[in-house]
């Protein structure tokens, strides 16, 4: 008798093909015309803001910035399937989800510039500051979700990680804990093909990243991350089942970032070809969804233009607000170390406060 070793691939969900035709009506989410338009509005708005942010970074007017173009469906289709009471644990690229979940845009700009106020999430906005350490958000998500479960709140903790992030120990620990405790958590793996420069095939022998959930005993699914309806439908299913007490799940979105890893010197021509980039641009999430909406008479050139204008205005206003926000002081930073400052920090604070004249 011989045992058979298997690696089980998971299903791939696509609703719209690249021409915006419905390929899988069974999964078509029940969204009103206005909700469909809102999805498009968010994606166009974000594409414009991202383009502006890239330019502003080149001009030195923003600091740390990780471009998002290409990933709009993956990011916004998933966030749109959550409630405002659900808690988002973003990584550093997941600024659009944070903003659409309630973080004011000017604070996102202050975060980029390295200002503490960028992390002072307003009361009532259920978002954590962007995570820098790859995977730390995964173990924390399980803790936040456990809090909801212990308090019998019908809320969900949701988080994002990239393809490279699924190689981290924290990724496995976090999803395994979530499964063990059956907490209401949704893990979204945005597989944008490269961890900075390293391709997925060098990260793992797993056939899909979604299949990594099998070992944690939590259900998972792979979706077309360039198809906003597929991302929305998959996330809605995961969020709904978590909210109803059926436990955590994982979604892998297959997507692509058009730009560099960050604006801090990454050069994508060193690790991917023009052909590859063009191939992915044919799958563009905005093009595809626009065709779908236009065929239904739900989106017009005027809608597109007014959204672009709205985004440009919002970015300018947010930037002006960020520009006028008071500078930080070292004494002010020391004040945020503890609820009550220990004596040694009081002494250190005084040294800076006198220099800073406060």
């Amino acid at each position, binding site marked *: 008798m011989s045992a058979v070793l298997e690696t089980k691939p998971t299903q791939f969900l696509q609703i719209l093909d690249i021409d915006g035709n419905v390929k899988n009506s069974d999964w078509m989410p029940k969204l009103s015309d206005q909700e469909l338009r809102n999805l498009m509005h968010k994606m166009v708005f974000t594409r414009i803001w991202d383009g502006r942010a890239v330019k502003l970074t080149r001009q030195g007017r923003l600091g740390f910035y990780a471009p998002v173009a290409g990933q709009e469906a993956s990011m916004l289709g998933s966030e749109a399937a959550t409630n405002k009471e659900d808690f988002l644990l973003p990584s550093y690229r997941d600024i659009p989800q944070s903003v659409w979940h309630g973080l004011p845009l000017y604070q996102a700009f202050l975060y980029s510039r390295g200002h503490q106020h960028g992390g002072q999430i307003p009361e009532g906005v259920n978002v954590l500051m962007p995570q820098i350490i790859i995977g730390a958000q995964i173990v*924390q998500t399980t803790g936040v979700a456990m809090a909801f479960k212990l308090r019998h709140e019908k809320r969900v903790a949701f988080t994002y990680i990239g393809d490279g992030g699924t190689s981290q120990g924290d990724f496995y620990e976090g999803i395994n804990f979530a499964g063990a405790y059956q907490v209401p958590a949704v893990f979204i793996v945005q597989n944008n093909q490269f961890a900075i420069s390293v391709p997925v095939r060098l990260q793992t022998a797993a056939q899909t990243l979604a299949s990594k959930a099998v070992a944690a005993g939590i259900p998972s699914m792979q979706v077309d991350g360039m198809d906003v309806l597929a991302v929305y439908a998959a996330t809605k299913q995961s969020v709904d089942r978590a909210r109803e007490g059926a436990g955590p799940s994982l979604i892998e979105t297959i997507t692509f970032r058009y730009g560099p890893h960050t604006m801090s010197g990454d050069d994508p021509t060193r690790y991917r070809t023009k052909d590859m980039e063009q191939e992915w641009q044919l799958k563009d999430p905005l093009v595809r969804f626009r065709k779908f909406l236009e065929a239904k008479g739900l989106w017009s050139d005027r809608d597109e233009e007014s959204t672009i204008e709205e985004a440009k205005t919002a970015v300018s206003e947010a930037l002006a607000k960020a520009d006028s926000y008071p500078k930080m002081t070292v004494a002010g930073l020391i004040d945020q170390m503890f609820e009550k400052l220990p004596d040694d920090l009081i002494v250190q604070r005084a040294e800076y406060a006198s220099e800073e004249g406060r």
Partner: protein
Amino acid sequence: MAVMTMIQAITQALDLELARDEKVLLFGEDVGQSGGVFRATDGLQKKYGDQRVFDTPLAESGIAGLATGLGLQGFRPIAEIQFFGFVFEAMDEIAGQAARMRYRSGGRYTCPVVYRAPFGGGVKTPELHADSLEGILMQTPGLKVVIPSNPYDAKGLLISAIRDNDPVFFLEHMKLYRSFKQEVPEEAYTIPLGKANVVREGKDVTIVTYGAMVNTAVQAAETWAKTRGITAEVIDLRTISPIDIETIASSVKKTHRAVVLQEAQRTSGVAAEIVAQINEQAMFYLEAPILRITAPDTVFPYAQIEDEWLPTQTRVIEGLEKVLSM
């Protein structure tokens, strides 16, 4: 008043705080059903249920990350790291995450977590159980580090740590768990974090120490007083971050001589920091250089040579003689 060991005092502190505040949660490897490898959490799951006192999967970063997430949401998690040597696995969640939460969010989020871990030499554990890694924690802004030396302090300090609104690492020396008993009040009481304790008064030299070395210091001081008629003042730090330099400096100003005694290796860490701070605060009162009595800068030793590696009473007395002769 009840007489109890340090482990009993710790269990009682956990019990009282679980009873007082339903936001207190207690978890880690083997802490639930089994009551912990040292029985520190014995009976607590039965009393408070498996929603509040529970076993975790075997993964330290997962444990610490769970604590971060729960702390963010207003709970007061007490996370046990089964042995302090396993803390490397969880360092990002402690130093990189929880200790920075208040700062990173400009005060919007806090992380009132207590991490508990047994540590300390002299009990012949396998590698990476007994290491004195407190210097690493001490260099973490945003984290308080507490190391009790006796049952009474352990209870009062642990209750303070649990009620603190910032993350606290609470280190429990394994050799102290059951080595002696002390009178400990049954009710809850607090000992403020960041305050040292003068455990023995003296006028000729100050010994600054913490943890299990407090007993070594007191014994050496007693022997020395009998044989030489010279008195040493012993200061138990109780909290190594923040350090109570005021108590240390006022003692040094009185005795004019100081040694710092620690179980940890010599370089960097608590002793080096104390020497620096005494220099800043009381340099001109000193009549001799401050001496560090520590373990050597090797990896924590194999069990068979542990007792020679750790600072002994003899080495403490030699150190005191050296400082006095200068």
